[in-house]
């Protein structure tokens, strides 16, 4: 198409505007001195101050990050095992079941996973007096959910990877474990990193499952935000949202630059 289609550009602009106007509005409001967001009361950093002084929020942030980090690491271990098995092991007893258990959580509404996980923990607690509902249970439920997403990432990377590399390593005398650690793992490392970040984000952002499986005193960040939001629009949340958006934008830009530089190096 040689003609620059005006209609297409307008439609695209509308779409991107739709995606970003809410984000920009939140950033703008976070600097609004007035508590009522509909009225502009002048530029102010007041809400950032109140955010940093809000101990409940800060505790929740710390808790969420800890849970997310543990979740992501465990999810990568589990997801890599699943992804490896499903892409390289051919047919083995239980393959169908493993595949099903890996795809089901992704098509399931969060509320279902939340309720079922909670009922499991309640039953376990009755029988074995463990676990107590709190960060442990949230983490266990999160790992189960996010591992399935990691499986997808690892599996897709492994199917697109040249299998003859692993065959060549075996042909040269390396046993399967060595092949995995010396050949496969370095080559799928970017996928593992992507999987870790994905699991981290999913865990950090989860409201529903955490609400079901948490216990007293173990509120996560989304839970605190949700309860504040239900009570009414509170401006500290704007400040929090701005910080998160800026952090993510920085992270993605850095990642993009790093990848771009690595691509150029390879030439």
């Amino acid at each position, binding site marked *: *198409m040689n003609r620059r*289609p005006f209609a*297409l*550009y307008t*439609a695209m602009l*509308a*779409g*991107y505007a*739709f*995606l*970003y*106007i*809410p*984000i920009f*509005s*939140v950033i703008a*409001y976070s600097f609004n001195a007035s508590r009522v*967001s*509909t009225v502009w009361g002048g530029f102010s950093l007041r809400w950032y101050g109140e955010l940093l002084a809000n101990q409940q929020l800060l505790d929740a942030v710390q808790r969420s990050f800890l849970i997310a980090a543990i979740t992501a690491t465990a999810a990568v271990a*589990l997801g890599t*095992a699943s992804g490896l*098995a499903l892409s390289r*092991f051919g047919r*083995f*007893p*239980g393959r169908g*079941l*493993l595949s099903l*258990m*890996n*795809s*089901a959580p992704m*098509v*399931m*509404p*969060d*509320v279902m996973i939340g309720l*079922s996980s909670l*009922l499991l923990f*309640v*039953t376990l607690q009755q029988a074995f007096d463990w676990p107590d509902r709190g960060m442990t249970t949230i983490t266990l*439920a999160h*790992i189960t959910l996010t*591992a399935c997403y990691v*499986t997808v990432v690892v599996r897709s990377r492994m199917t697109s990877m040249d299998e003859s590399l692993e065959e060549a390593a075996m042909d040269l005398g390396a046993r*399967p*474990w060595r092949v995995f650690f010396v050949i496969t793992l370095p080559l799928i490392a970017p996928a593992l990193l992507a999987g870790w970040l994905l699991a981290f984000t999913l865990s950090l*952002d989860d409201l*529903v499952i955490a*609400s079901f499986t948490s216990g007293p005193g173990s509120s996560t960040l989304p839970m605190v*935000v*949700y309860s504040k*939001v239900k009570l009414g*629009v509170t401006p500290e*949340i704007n400040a*929090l*949202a701005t910080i998160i958006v800026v952090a993510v934008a920085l*992270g*993605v830009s850095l990642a*993009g630059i790093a990848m771009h530089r690595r691509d150029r190096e390879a030439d």
Partner: protein
Amino acid sequence: MRAASASGVWGFWFDVVRNLFGWFRLVGREFRTRRGRFLVTSLPMLWLALFFLVPFLIVLKISFSQAVFGQVPPYTALVEHAADGAVSLRLHASNYAMLLSDPLYVSAYLKSLLFASVSTGFCLLLGYPIAYGIARARPSMRLVLLVLVVLPFWTSSLLRTYALMGILKANGLLGQVLSAIALVEPGWGILYSDAAVYVGIVYNYLPFMILPLTATLMRLDFTLLEAAEDLGAKPWHAFMRITLPLSMPGIIAGALLVFIPAVGEFVIPDILGGPDALTIGRVLWIEFFTNRDWPLAAAVTIAMLVLIVAPTLLFEYVENRRADQEAANT
């Protein structure tokens, strides 16, 4: 419930046990000959079985019990030991009866389907131009455009939905803009209505429509359009007859990625919608947290399993089989 001693039932159970033994033999052989692989597969298998599969069995069991308030756990036990030593199974189908008889549940399910399908349509309308533009863009621009689409996904969706509150509320950003150009009265806002829910779902799920669409459109051979033009087709015609049909796989993929999760959505209808924006996800939440009726919530979960998850998994299975057949036939 006492087991019938008809041979049919015994035969059935005998078959089950025999199949189980066969399976165990297979597993045992696998363990002996391929120890390493067995380790690798059994780790996720055991974890998922314990933390994913077993919970649903528990949900099933509890859906057949009755709520008891003030007790921990707040539901009746399944198996009861009577004074004379007899063991009996107490199944209450009352929860399922409630689901079927009270119109609240059916209408909540239908409302969820309505929200999801309309939102999918809007996602397609809004997302197709973006996907098309990205597919036709120069490679250098393409990466930037794609990143801009994906970036919101990495920020918290809860916070973004919250951002919509500020825009959609009475005299929020949208209201202020529209009343400034005299389209609406001052103080107008659509927060806490169905309209807000639609906006919210489209807002959150738009990237999921754009990405598969972009992938499919990028694989499109645009010289086909040039050939159409050469043969005299006007641009709109060429689009409807060539581009649209060829991008169907991407449209379907994107539609599924939006529709299926949207049906079970809880957060968006809860934050942005009014009391009549009752989706099946909200119903589950309310039954559990507000009404404290765990068995009913469990029954709703089973219903969602049957009505949402099972069809999706079946569809995926059929699709995979079809794709495998196609690959084998080429």
